[in-house]
């Protein structure tokens, strides 16, 4: 009796644990399959011409140069605008307003913005900017991406500054240093690796975003440095080309997808290595 109970318990445990291993194989298997297909299909179209030629009209050969350049311009723009705002906000929350109700509310709202649907951000920028100036433009895309960057940077900046040892702050205060100088000269230097990590994560986050660009930057078949007009970008090109019936375009979509994934993975891995180094010190 006692024995059968024990066997039953062990058996049910064994079954559930096997299921758990099964879930791991199933889940990770699917993800591995996606990455595998992506690499296989993407590499098939990876040629030098991808980086030297413009997006082609259907049926002819071409590359993704204008889309890559546009993506770089808009991502850079978004980060250059969004990261300082996020960093300053994070500084306030960690240093001046630590523990106040205002900070708690901002943190809460920021966490919600962090996972809010990106298409909503696109609609917002359409309403406040595109509808006012009556044309799609790279500027609108940059604004949308900047809004996506802010929450990521706020989060990491606050977390990283809170990790700066309190003794540093006390030592600075004892020497009569004001807060602002302590923050800029000491705290931010101590937390530098972490702050860079935050910015890298933000770049990784926005570089593959498609939804906010749908009604802001749109896309452009041609080369354009004019950020006041629609500008080509990788995510939109992938979206448009993948849904097209042309084989050449679909191939370019796969290659573009591979490029974005590699960029995102490289950024997140760099961020990880940096923060690991920062922690070791």
């Amino acid at each position: 009796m006692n024995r059968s109970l024990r066997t039953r318990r062990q058996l049910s445990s064994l079954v559930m644990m096997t299921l758990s291993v099964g879930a791991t194989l199933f889940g990770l298997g699917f993800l591995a399959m996606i990455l595998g297909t992506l690499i296989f299909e993407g590499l098939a179209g990876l040629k030098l011409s991808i980086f030297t030629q413009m997006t082609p009209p259907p049926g002819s050969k071409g590359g993704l140069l204008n889309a890559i350049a546009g993506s770089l311009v808009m991502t850079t723009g978004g980060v250059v605008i969004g990261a300082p705002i996020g960093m300053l906000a994070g500084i306030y929350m960690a240093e001046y307003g630590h523990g106040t109700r205002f900070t708690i509310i901002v943190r809460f709202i920021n966490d919600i913005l962090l996972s809010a649907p990106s298409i909503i951000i696109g609609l917002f920028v359409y309403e406040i900017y595109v509808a006012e100036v009556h044309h799609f433009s790279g500027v609108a895309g940059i604004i949308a991406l900047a809004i996506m960057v802010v929450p990521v940077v706020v989060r990491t900046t606050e977390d990283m500054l809170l990790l700066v040892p309190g003794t540093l702050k006390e030592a600075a205060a004892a020497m009569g240093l004001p807060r602002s100088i302590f923050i800029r000269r000491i705290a931010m230097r101590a937390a530098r690796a972490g702050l860079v990590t935050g910015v890298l994560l933000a770049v990784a986050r926005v570089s593959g975003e498609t939804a906010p660009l749908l009604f802001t930057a749109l896309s452009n078949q041609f080369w354009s440095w004019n950020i006041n007009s629609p500008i080509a970008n990788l995510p939109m090109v992938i979206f448009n080309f993948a849904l097209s019936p042309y084989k050449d375009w679909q191939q370019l979509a796969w290659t573009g997808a591979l490029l974005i994934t590699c960029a995102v993975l490289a950024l997140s891995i760099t961020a990880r290595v940096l923060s690991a180094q920062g922690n070791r010190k």
Partner: protein
Amino acid sequence: MAVITINSSDAGPKALASTRAAVVRSFRRGDRAFRLVTFTAALSVLIILCGVMLSLLFGAWPALRTFGFGFFIHATWNPVKDVFGALAAIYGTLVTSVLAMLLAVPVSFGIAVFLTELCPWWLRRPIGIAVELLAGIPSIIYGIWGLFVFLPFVQSYIQPFLINLFAPVPVLNVLFAGPPYGIGTFSAAFILAIMVVPFITAVTRDVFETVPAVLKEAAYGIGATRLEVVRRVVVPYTRTGLVGGVMLGLGRALGETMAVTFVIGNAHAISSSLLAPGTTISAVIANEFNEATDPMYISSLIALGLILFFITFVVLAISRLLLMRIEKAEAK
């Protein structure tokens, strides 16, 4: 700024004191200015949220005023006749997300249990890192994979199999009825599930790791099996965090655009079959916004956005409140 040289060779104590006072004053001014700048930046986070809410309300107002409450309960979506109802899109959003969660939650919990209880130590870090990296892959990648690889496969193998399998079963033959289109609610939910698995797994693993080792050791010590430790110790201890993690995943799934738009089929219809094409709020907006020229059409699309924003806001707020509670408990 911090480097201040005080030339004290010929200055008397009085002059020194006044320089010092000037320095302190400039410090104070600088500090106040810097504080103001950072405060404005922090305030901008709140302003963004309020701005999003107000601009959506403002844009949605014409549609909401014209159609009233009917906007939420009618499924007609007719741009030609200017009649719009959001029900089909709301229904599609909820059904795909809930289905996705039904698939993703057990798998994610399984992976998290594997990572915290079963996995050999040397494998834990690599798998954990892989999961976190996968959570960062842009959703358009899942969309394009779904379109080119998953849909053809589902259409020729999985859907015919499901249709035949459930044909004699009373309720299920309605849910899995019809020709195998490939595209549709089922495929969208499946892709969403694959996409949110890394999110939920990462959060679940983190909360599982907050369980004190002593508790688990005590349970093993009195002869509990692994399953019993997980069910009676780990899960009760982390219940709040688990719900928070699931809600976080749900928030992602509800608002996801690119992964869904490729595979849902974009049909404004509420179908009893899960295999039939449907649509979601984000897919409607992504597909139709740039084609909409009529003001009422645009306003209706923005109203859809407002509904989506409201739903995700509530779900994410609940998730954050629950996760905050666990963080607080951990800090104690």
